[in-house]
């Protein structure tokens, strides 16, 4: 074993040096306070990026290194089993990954950390949280190693490797976004998932390693099945995510080219088309769309933007808003997300961990600050009770130094003003002892139409909703909100303009009068040739999705609430809500045709009945992506039948001593 390690020492040491130095520079760059004191760990997303790239490179290189240097046979031709060779290499790599996770953090703890001014309040236990969050590095390494070990060509290995890594990344980020789910919020579950995925990928890698890389032999036995299933699931998830995003782009293109609803100079609502530069307008569909005249309120002229119901894929929407940098930070949310809820002069910061019902005030040391650094466990009321685990932050836009929390277990509201030096939450009751139910954002004006060079504005305000009414924060306490604003907002938001049919590409909208009468209605749809072409692209992307997921989409798996995180990717909005049965039928038909083609091809190649059935069912459920995977894994080359020549047919012509 020592000898096997020594032969790889060169490149292992290279990875060891770079993989340790770069994270070390990153965390030293963030500083001691960001890593060990402030609990909002999502901020150190660069560290997670490094923890991704390193294992990815290590896994890929580790898997193909002997192949690149063409020393596989030199290594194998000695009395050492393949299992041992594999185990030593993988074991060394896994140890390296764990070292990458632990060593830079340990270094910062031991050296700069011990002498830092804020060392007394450092949360050293966070070390284990970091290691847990970093366990994704094991899966990343194993996925890359697995892809590199596959018995397929270089391009196929790269594509499959990218799909597996993408599967890990998107899957866990979406899981992190949905951390309202208790089970998903457990660091233990997250680590266990990563360990399980690591084991699965390495088992597949070993199977391929043990069978050897021979493109003229089929993958057989357990390795064949396990490889197909593992890659199939990863590929479906990754491909569906990509398909969903492309489909969303096509859908947005359809929506952007739909006619606009505007109010003309005479106060009538009209449907107009806008040219590509937004310069000219032309009336369209007026004869069958306009039901009557409608006047916007005088203080709010203009048309209506429809964007609020365009993007309702929650997971993707949030991911897109966050940006890639924040995605990596999300991995630190597993095990409890700490959220900053108030700040005073940069060194007094209040954090909430709603999962654990904890509110901590961090007073950090700085040159301007008097006194010693401290962490205060903030509790509520004169009895210093702890918050329940069902606690919610109330956003107050007016101030940043007041923390206001609602404890949903009893409907009470609590506030803590850091500028006053308070270290306990005081009650902030609603007028009349009302019970807190939630917050609501009211729109105070219509969105103005977007014209060339002119942006729309949205005027909104957040109100606390109680069982008896709405309330507004006046700077020190809550008071009843003016009725007219609520009425105005309700009228704007719910009464005048109503989306009567929520559909990704064919929504129906109505404008109603004061008495509720319909003044204007329009159902968008694919009427013109251009619209039909754009719509066909959207439908085409649906055909690429897995039939199993399409059935689930059609069958009513809800896209909301947010906790159903996977729905954002896997559920097709075109089918959701039992819409477009024909599209589901077309998708299933594609699956059937592909399965039949695959069965015919596999039968010609001479695959066993069981294996043909496996692929047929897999393609029926997985669709186009699984059909492609089948083509990559089950090649004609691997099943080519040799034309056997009898040994005595053509003997050598000169037989020394035998002739």
């Amino acid at each position: 074993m020592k000898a096997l390690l020594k032969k790889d020492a060169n490149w292992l040491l290279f990875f060891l040096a770079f993989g340790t130095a770069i994270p070390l520079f990153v965390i030293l760059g963030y500083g001691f306070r960001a890593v060990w004191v402030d609990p909002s760990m999502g901020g150190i997303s660069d560290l997670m990026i490094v923890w991704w790239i390193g294992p990815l490179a290590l896994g890929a290189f580790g898997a193909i290194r002997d192949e690149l240097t063409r020393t596989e046979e030199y290594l194998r031709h000695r009395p050492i089993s393949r299992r041992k060779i594999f185990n030593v290499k993988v074991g060394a790599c896994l140890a390296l990954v764990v070292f990458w996770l632990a060593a830079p953090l340990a270094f910062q703890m031991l050296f700069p950390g011990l002498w830092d001014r804020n060392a007394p309040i450092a949360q050293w236990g966070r070390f284990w949280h970091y290691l847990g969050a970093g366990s994704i590095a094991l899966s990343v390494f194993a996925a890359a190693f697995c892809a590199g070990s596959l018995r397929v060509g270089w391009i196929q290995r790269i594509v499959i490797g990218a799909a597996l890594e993408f599967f890990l990344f998107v899957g866990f980020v979406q899981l992190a976004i949905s951390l309202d789910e208790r089970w998903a919020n457990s660091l233990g579950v997250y680590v266990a998932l990563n360990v399980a995925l690591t084991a699965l990928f390495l088992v597949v890698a070993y199977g391929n390693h043990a069978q050897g890389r021979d493109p003229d032999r089929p993958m057989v036995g357990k390795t064949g099945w396990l490889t197909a299933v593992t890659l199939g699931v990863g590929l479906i998830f990754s491909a569906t995510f990509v398909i969903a995003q492309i489909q969303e782009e096509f859908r947005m293109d359809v929506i952007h080219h739909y006619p606009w609803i505007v109010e003309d100079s005479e106060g009538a609502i009209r449907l107009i088309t806008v040219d590509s530069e937004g310069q000219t307008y032309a009336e369209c569909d007026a004869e069958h769309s306009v039901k009557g005249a409608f006047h916007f309120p005088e203080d709010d002229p203009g048309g209506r933007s429809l964007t609020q119901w365009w993007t309702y894929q929650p997971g993707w929407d949030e991911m897109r808003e966050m940006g890639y940098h924040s995605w990596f930070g999300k991995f630190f949310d597993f095990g409890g997300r700490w959220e900053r809820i108030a700040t005073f002069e940069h060194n007094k910061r209040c954090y909430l961990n709603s999962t654990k019902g904890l509110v901590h005030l961090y007073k950090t040391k700085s040159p301007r600050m008097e006194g010693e650094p401290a962490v205060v466990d903030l509790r509520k009321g004169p009895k210093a009770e702890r918050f329940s685990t069902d606690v919610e932050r109330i956003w107050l836009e007016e101030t940043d130094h007041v923390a206001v929390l609602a404890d949903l277990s009893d409907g009470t509201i609590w506030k803590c003003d850091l500028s006053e030096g308070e270290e306990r939450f005081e009650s902030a009751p609603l007028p009349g002892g009302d019970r807190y139910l939630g917050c609501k954002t009211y729109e105070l004006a219509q969105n103005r139409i977007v014209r060339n060079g002119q942006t729309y504005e949205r005027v909104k305000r957040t109100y606390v909703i109680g069982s008896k009414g709405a309330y507004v924060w006046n700077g020190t306490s809550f008071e009843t909100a003016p009725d007219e604003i609520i009425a105005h907002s309700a009228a704007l938001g719910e009464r005048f303009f109503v989306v009567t049919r929520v559909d990704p590409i064919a929504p129906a909208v109505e404008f109603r009068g004061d008495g509720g009468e319909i003044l204007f209605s329009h159902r968008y749809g694919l009427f013109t040739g251009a619209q039909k072409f754009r719509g066909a692209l959207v439908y085409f992307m649906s055909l690429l999705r897995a039939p199993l997921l399409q059935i689930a989409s059609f069958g009513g798996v809800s896209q909301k609430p947010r906790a159903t995180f996977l729905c954002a990717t896997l559920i097709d909005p075109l089918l959701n809500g039992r819409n477009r049965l024909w599209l589901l039928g077309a998708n299933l038909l594609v699956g059937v045709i592909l399965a039949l083609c695959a069965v015919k091809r596999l039968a010609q190649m001479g695959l066993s009945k069981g294996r043909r059935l496996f692929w047929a069912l897999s393609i029926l459920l997985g669709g186009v992506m699984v059909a492609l995977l089948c083509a990559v894994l089950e090649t004609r080359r691997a099943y080519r039948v040799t034309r056997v020549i009898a040994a005595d047919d053509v003997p050598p012509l000169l037989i020394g001593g035998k002739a």
Partner: protein
Amino acid sequence: MSRSIVFDNVHRHFGALDVLRGLTFDVAPGEVFALLGRNGSGKTTALRILLGFLAPMHGRATILGIDSQAIAPVERDRIGYVAEGHRLYASMRIKDAIAFESDTRPRFRRSYAEHAVRRCGLSPAKRIGLLSRGQRAQLSLIFAVAGEPEVLIFDDPAMGLDVVMRREFLDAMIELLSDQGCSVLFSSHILTDVERIADRVGILDEGRLVVDATMVDLRKRVEKRFWEPPEAAGRETPEAAGRETPEAAGRETPEAAGRETPEAGGRETPHVDGLLRARPRRRGFDLTLLDFDAEREAVLRSGGASLSEPAVPTLEDLFLDITTRNEGGATPLRQRESQS
């Protein structure tokens, strides 16, 4: 007597290309067997199948009585192997490579390897990546031999070795092993080495063994003659007429350019049993003959043609005669095969 190496009707293809088509031969203990063939004829594939690195599509290969597809790790210590290109870990120093071999192969004689390395003038501290191709070949051979193998498989071991090294080092090593009862199977492109070292020769062509013979038999049973047909025999040669020959003038001869001479092209190639190949020359044909006897000689001489005294062909001559394609793209053997 049990054979050290057996190929029994082994077939193997890569994609649509049939590389081995019924390869059948065996190697006795202590025998040195040279596997010859043109590039792509399947030599390396045969050796990789024998060592279990590739699976045959049909047939079976055994080494030391063990099926090549079921060689247990411990049995590999009995087999020495030098891969094509002498692949070693380039980042290792020679002394580290010796230590690696010693740690991973129980039969490896470390002191022997260290001694041999010194005798070859290699510095133990030198990195393998900095060695020349020949030095790397020496090191590979030392490593293979130091394991005291019962069977030694060399894939083109002489590649990169200069003449001196081939004569002194490779020959000595193989002879030593053979004397100790070790079977040696090696492929090579350097036919003079093969003539010197091998007990038996197999020539692979298009995935099949077309020749399997001992060197002694080959020399005995193959002869080379020059056959001059009667009309050419009576004609005055340029030399006799005092004219400058193309060779003497430094010009390319038609034969050298691969063109048929008018004389040869105008005559019919002699047909006789035991004729392996007839190569047209300026005034006649070079004939490579198998098992030539007086009766066949009489057939050739009939009609007034003249036939030179037999010359002993080199292995290279024979190899060329067997593996060189004629105009139809077939080797002489393949042509005879199809005719029969």
